[in-house]
Structure formats: structure tokens, C-alpha cells
């Protein structure tokens, strides 16, 4: 079980959290097509490498927060803490 670094509570087992997905922008407006909206609902980038993710600490501070997680190593780091050379 991976550990999630909660910005309020510190590192905790991931089963204290709910994964809330990658941050995405909801398309709004009358000209939004079903294809666009369903891409927002269902299509995930599922990238290999560092990704931004939303998590909810349901068994802790009950706050939503964003972290960056490496999808291969499961390493986590605060958003924006990426070293310049490895930022991608």
C-alpha cells in the first residue's frame, strides 16, 4: 500500500484517502459537444511519469488536495516541487 503525503496530516496509508482523479477542466457553454463533455468525464491521460492528482483525506483532515505522483515508482511530491531538470 502506498503512502500519500497529506499536506495537513503528513504521510498516511493510502486507504485513508479517496482518489479523486486527475484535475480536469469542465467544458462549459452552450456550444459544448457531447464528445467534449464525455472526454472530460471518461477520458484520462493515464500518463507514465509524474502526474497531478486530487486526493481526499476521508479518514483524516477531510480536505481535498493535489499532489504529484509518479505512476511507475509511486513516489509522491508536492505540486510545484519538481526539480527544474526533470520537470515535464
Amino acid at each position, binding site marked *: *500500500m502506498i503512502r500519500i503525503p497529506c499536506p495537513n496530516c503528513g504521510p498516511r496509508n493510502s486507504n485513508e484517502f479517496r482518489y479523486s482523479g486527475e484535475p480536469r477542466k469542465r467544458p462549459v457553454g452552450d456550444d459544448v459537444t457531447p464528445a467534449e463533455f464525455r472526454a472530460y468525464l471518461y477520458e484520462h491521460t493515464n500518463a507514465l511519469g509524474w502526474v497531478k492528482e486530487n486526493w481526499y483525506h476521508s479518514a483524516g483532515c477531510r480536505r481535498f488536495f493535489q499532489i504529484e505522483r509518479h505512476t511507475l515508482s509511486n513516489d509522491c511530491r508536492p505540486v510545484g516541487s519538481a526539480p527544474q531538470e526533470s520537470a515535464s
Partner: protein
Amino acid sequence: MSGTSGPYRLPVQATEEIDRSKTIKFTWNGASVTGYEGDTIVSALLANGYEVIARGLKYHRPRGVLSGTFHDPNCTVQVDVEPNVRAAHRLAKSGMSVTAQNVFPSLKFDIGTVNQAAGRFLTAGFYYKTFMWPGPLWPAYEKVLSRFAPGGRVAPMGTPHGHYDHKYVHPDVLVAGSGPAGIAAALAAAGAGADVMLVEEDHNIGGHLRFGNDAELARLAELRAAVAAEPRITVLTNSVVAARYDDNWVSVVQRTLPSAVERLYKARVGTLVVAPGLFERPYVFEGNDLPGVMLSTAARRLIKLYGIAPGRTAVVFTANAEGDSCVETLRAAGVTIAAVVDARTGGNVVRALGRGHVTGVELADGRTIKADLLVTATGWTAPTSLINMAGARPVWNQVAARFMPGDDLPSNVMVAGGLGGDGTLAELIDHATEIGRIAAARAAGADGGKAPLLGVDSHPALFRSTTHGFIDYTEDVQSKDIIAAAAEGYDSSELVKRFTTATMGPSQGKYETINTIAVLGEAVGASVSDLGTTVWRPPFAPISLGALAGQHAEPTRISPMQEWHEAHGAEPLIAGQWIRPEHYGDPVAEVNAVRNAVGIIDVTPLGKLDLRGPDISKLLNVVYVNAWNKLDVGSVRYGVMCAEDGVVMDDGVTGRLGENHYLMSTTSSGAATVWEWCENWLQTEHPDWQVHITPVTTSYASINIAGPKSRELISRLVTDVDLSNEAFPYMKVRQGTIAGVPDCVLWRIGFTGELSFEIHVPSSYGLHVWESLLEAGADLGVKPFGIEAQRVLRLEKGHFIVAQDTDALTKGFSAGIDGLIKLDKPDYFSGKTELAWQRSAGADDIRVVPIQTDDPNIVPPEASQIVVGSKMVGRVTSSRMSPTLKRSIALAQVPASLSTAGSALTIVLPSGNRISAHVFDGHAFVDPQGERLHG
């Protein structure tokens, strides 16, 4: 038999771990066996001359000790009601009833041995090929095969089982394996200030030093004393590190404790030091599975730890120092050494002779030597499981002739001892000491420096002789099967493993993986290095389901009235974490009480969220599909929530108690989801909105009082609220005192279709108010009713239940809440975009509608299919016999084209019979005008 030692018991050995002053007695296939405390089941059996412990899976050949450890593939037995006990590891206890598994009718005469004669039909892939077809015959095959399949007898249902335990631990350093390297690493880590858990699979720490020479024994005594004196080290013996997961989440199973059958440790480890030592690898030749053929480490263990002579006359086939030292150990134990065959000078064993036991050994130099024991010491397999589980891929070292860790270990996993390389005892201990120090430093977040590497000794790469023998003892796979599989095109280690089942039995590759790869390499002309090893997955050793299940630690939620319910005959209904009354014996009478007089139901599990702040209506507008701007103080409103894909998520009533104070109710199962949903909107999308949410589900006990006499009943207990229809009409909320309890919330709502009041009282007074209602309403005929009656009552009103009548595809307009969905709300609300598109959906779109069967006496079971011809187009989602209407009523999901009133439907019953039904004209079956509700 005289005395207790047994004919194969040696005089006292300095190293032995048995207590000859304490005799134990158990039975083996019904016969009485005596041994000493400290004996394993197998050592006690061998002492008494029983050497056949089990029979093989396919050919039912007799099998005896191979390694004499937990992982011995030939020593699995049944102990009392416990199957698959590792008998070379499990300590014998007085009173045990031990029996052989996989034998029919008996261990001595097993009818399955005829499979040997039929052996040419039992080749690689035999199961896949033979029993695939004709398909309808499979049940017959299964019946026959199961008789010959291995494994013991599972205890019958109802057999009391022991206590299993779970424990969470957070050691800085966990050392897997307590040989000299493991102990040294643990001591060094503890010396550097780390809390250390030292885990040993065997019953005592020390590894191979336990059966070493005098100097090694002296070193072991020092190491043990140092461990005992180190308070930072926790030692777990008879325990196995079963798995390593992300972030060093390590599971350890501790066996046969006084207080528990097994305990599963869930350890979050700073640095994991893997020091399991090496497994001795069997050699492949004809007859290598005969009882009397064993590994050099097995012979040494038997002599040194249990004082057992493994035979009378031995041939030793050796390729290394450990094999050489075994010759000395055997000689000292009085075993005649008939021949020492040295692989390093070209010696080789061709076959072991004998039926049911070794009687002689045929050598490559043409000699045949009489012997009842053949000991092999041909090399080592590195148990790389735990580093595999850490993501590392071990690499083949041709010099050492074994897989070794590469340079891809994560920094929180380190290796010590034989897994990492070779060296003298002093070198291994020095290396492990440095590893322990660095492990402690890394666990503390420091660098600690680079891990030193061990050297390797040269070792001949010996796998198979010139004859064919067994590779996988637990699966009865022979070297010729691997070659046959390769000839059929299964030319990679992962493929050949799955096709032949080699490495897939209970020993999971510990003895057979390398030989499998080596023989495959022979067949396809590739090296072990080219083929690579298969990936070892958790668990390292079998662990019981009991250990995984552990204690039942799931919380159970009950209302303050649950004890009363149980005392009054309530049938319990498990609903998520809640236990609540399904009914009190007669749900029909409960329905009738509500329709004709008054009933009360405990609805405490109903989710309740207390909302405070000036921006609550904004939150309500975004989570509910309906509009919330104009809800007056003192009013309640029903609302439905849809997810962003438009699917119905939850429903409930929200009331406005004050200017900036609302109480939201959710479904019982949706309480946590809705809370998180609301927090999500507030925290991630609208942090500027001022709303604070407090979950108050269990702060209040909730009771619904329903029926034509409900007002009369409640007016006897409420003193400070005007309950008249004019002052307190339908869909209003009041706060007041009930049965002397202030600060109660009263909602006038009605899921049952009757005049009804839902009251929320501070939970500590729940039982008092419940009992007061029953006492005050005795003359009115008040009855408690349960979930079943409530479901019938709401069905009579045509109300859907989220997740019963809707599912994960049911969007808002499918649920029949068209009037509720306000697409003209100016701002985005959850589901708005999808619902706007759904409004124009076609004839295939699903609708939830009330239906009636044309035969009023048939109640189609829930989930019965609704069909057009042979095509399923919908299903019955709720159905009951209505006690009020005395006829069958139901809700169903049907296509829009069949959803208009009067549409004819065909329902298929589970019997296959088809019945006709039609869509009901209206919403509610009972009181369609809602007169009772508003009265």
C-alpha cells in the same frame, strides 16, 4: 518398540534442538508414534522408521524428506482438521492425529500408482489436452480427478476455528532471515539506534550456524546473546515475511502462537534487509524423488537438530564445501560412507535405484554402489522473491551459478548474506554489519553511504545428469516434460511454466525454477542467463485465509433503539454497516397498521448533514437538480442529486431551520458519499462559498410516525408546536420538544403516502422517545414497523429507491423526475449538461415506471426480465403483493417506447413462463391524489 527414541535416533548431539526429557505421543495414519519435544512431525516419523511421508500428485510415487524445511515439497500432511501442514516444519505435539494426504486408499498401497504405468499419457499439458472436450463430460472428469487431486480435507462447516490476529507495526529496519548475516545486520541497525524486527521462518534463530561446527556454534552463541541483550530488536520466530509492497509495506505472518493460530503483521518498514540465505538446489536424475535421496542440508539438519540418522549407508554427491562437510557430519553420526562422488573432478550420479526406497546408486564411472541414502550438494538457488517484489530483476551470475540482485534495488531494500554473494563467515558478518548500519541511516532519512558488495565463489553449474528425473516434486513435472513442452513451441520460461505447471505447485519455484530454466535452455539451446527467471510474486510462503481475514474488525452501526428492536422480535437486516429491523414478525400487519392507524419506524441510519452559512442555497443548487433559491425558513423540499454524467446519485429532503441553517437528509447508504460530494464542490470548485458541513447522522435518532392517527399520537407528546394542518402543513419543518426532550426537529413529509411526521431527536433520548410513542399510542393501535413494510408502503406510492430501482446507468429523466429537473437554472449544476442531452433521447432510453401484472396474484421476482420476443428490453426492479390493494404491484425499467400508460409488457419468470403486464396509469397505486398525505 522400546523407549521413545525410535530406531533411527542417534545419541545426543551437541547441536540438537529436542528435549529428550520430554516425550510426546501422536498418531500417524492411526498408528502411535512417540518423539521428543522439539521434534517436527517429520523428524519424529523418521526416528521411528517412517520415511514415506506423502505421495506424488500425478504418479502417486512415494515421497520422503528432500530439504527437511518448511518448504520441503514432499512433506505435506493433514493434522486433525487442518490440511496441507508442512510436516518438516510443524512441531509435533501430543495428541495430534496426523494423516497422509493424496492417498487412496492408503499411504502404503495407493491405487494411483497405476498412473505410473500410464505415465506416457500424463505428459506436459495433459490436463489441457485430455479433459478439454467434449465439454459436457467435464463434471464426470472432475469427479474422478478430484479423488486423485492432492490436498487434504478442509474442515466441515461449523468446525470451531482458532483465533487469528492482525497487528500494525512500524519498525525502522526489518530483517528477513536470521542467519549470521541477518543477525549481524539487525545488531548493527539496532546499535545505530533503529528499532529492528528480526524475522525467522524456522523455530530458532541462527540459520545454518545451527548445524555448524564447534567454531560456528560458538559464534552463534555470541550472536544470540547479543540479540537477547539488545532491547531494540524484536525477534519473531516461526514467522515468514510473506510479501513486500510499495513503500515497504511488508506483511509478516507469525504462526502457532499461544494466543492465536496466526498473526498477520502489517509492517511499514523504513529499510527492509533481505537476508534469507540460499536454498539448496536438487539435482535432476532418474530416481531423484525416491525416499532416501535428499539434499545435504537436509541430512545435516536431521542429524544436528533432531539426532536422526538419515540412513545407514550413504553415497554423497558433492560439488561444494557444504557437501564435503556433510560427509564429515554423516561419518560422525555413524553413517557408513559408501562413496563420495565429486562433481568438481568429473564425478556424476546417473540414477538412483530402488522401488519405494533407494537401494543403490549408479555412477557415471560405471560403478553401482549399494546404499540406502543418496545425498546431493550440487548448488544453490537464491530466493529472490522479496527483491522481485520490490521491482528488482535479478541477474544470472555464471560464476556463482545462481541469480543475484542487480543494481536496480530501491534504496529502502538492501541485501545481506548468501543472497548477496559469498564469503567466509567473518566476511559475511562484516558485510551484513555495514548493511545494517546503512539500513538504519536510510530509515532515519540519512544517506549512510553506498552499500558494499560481496564477492562470489566459483561454482559448477550443475542441473541435470544424463538421465531424466523430477524437476517439480509438488506438480510431478519431469525434465522430459520440459523438453517435450519446448518441442511443442513453449520456448520461454514464462510459457513453459504455465504449460507444464512446473513451479506452479505449493513450493512455488523454490526448488524447481532454476532446473526448469536450465532444462529448457538445454532444449532450446539457450543459457539460463538468456532465458531469465520467472517473476516471483507474493506470498513467499503459503499463508492461511484465516491470517488474511484476521479478527472481524469492521465497525457495526446501530441506532439507540436497536436493543429494543431485538428484544421485541425484530429480524435483523444488515444494510452496509448498519444493522436495523427488517420486520417484527408480520410485515403485512405492519403495513396495515400504518394504512389504518399509526406505525413508527426507526430511520436513524438516514444520512443527516447540518449545514451552516450564508451560501447554502448555492451549494444546494449545484448538487441538486431542482431549484433551491426560494426555500423559506420552516420549509422542507425533496431533492434529487445526479452525478456529472447525469446518473441519479442520491435523494432526500432538506429543510431550512433558520436563515443560515439547513438540515440535509440523504439515503442511508449515501450519507458518506453525499458528504464527500458536497465537500468536493465546496473545497475544489467554490472555496469562496461560506458553508460549513457537520455530519449529524448519529447525533440524532430519527423516527418516522406514519398513518392517519399520527397527528393524534404525536400531539400527545409535543407541547410547544402547533401541529394543526393549517399551522404545520405538508413539507414544513418545526423545532420543538417531544416527550420532554427539547431541540427536536420535526419534518412533515411522507415516503409512505400517509400523514406522517419524521422526528429527529438527540440520540441519547432516542429510546425514551421511541418508548414514549408506543406507550402514548397504545390505545390508537400504534405498531413499530420495519424496512420491509416501509418498502411495501413506498412501492404502493410508486416511489423509487435509488440503487434499487435505479442503477449506475439510470439518468435523471429515466428515473421519472422530469418535473424536478430544472435545466433553466442559470448556473451549472451537477449533471446539467448530460441531462440537457438526455431530454431529447429516443425510444430506447430507459424509464422507471409503475407496472401491474395482468394476473393480480403473480408477483414477478425482482430482476425478472421484460422482453420483446427473445430480446431483453427491461427488468422488474421492485415487486410486492400489496396488502392494501390485495394485488401484485411493481416498478420496472422499460424502454421509453413501452413506458406510456397502458403499454403491454411481457415478463419472463425464473421458471421460464411468460406473463403479461401493463404500465400503470399514474404514479401511485394507492391514494393517487395524495389526499391522505395532505390531510
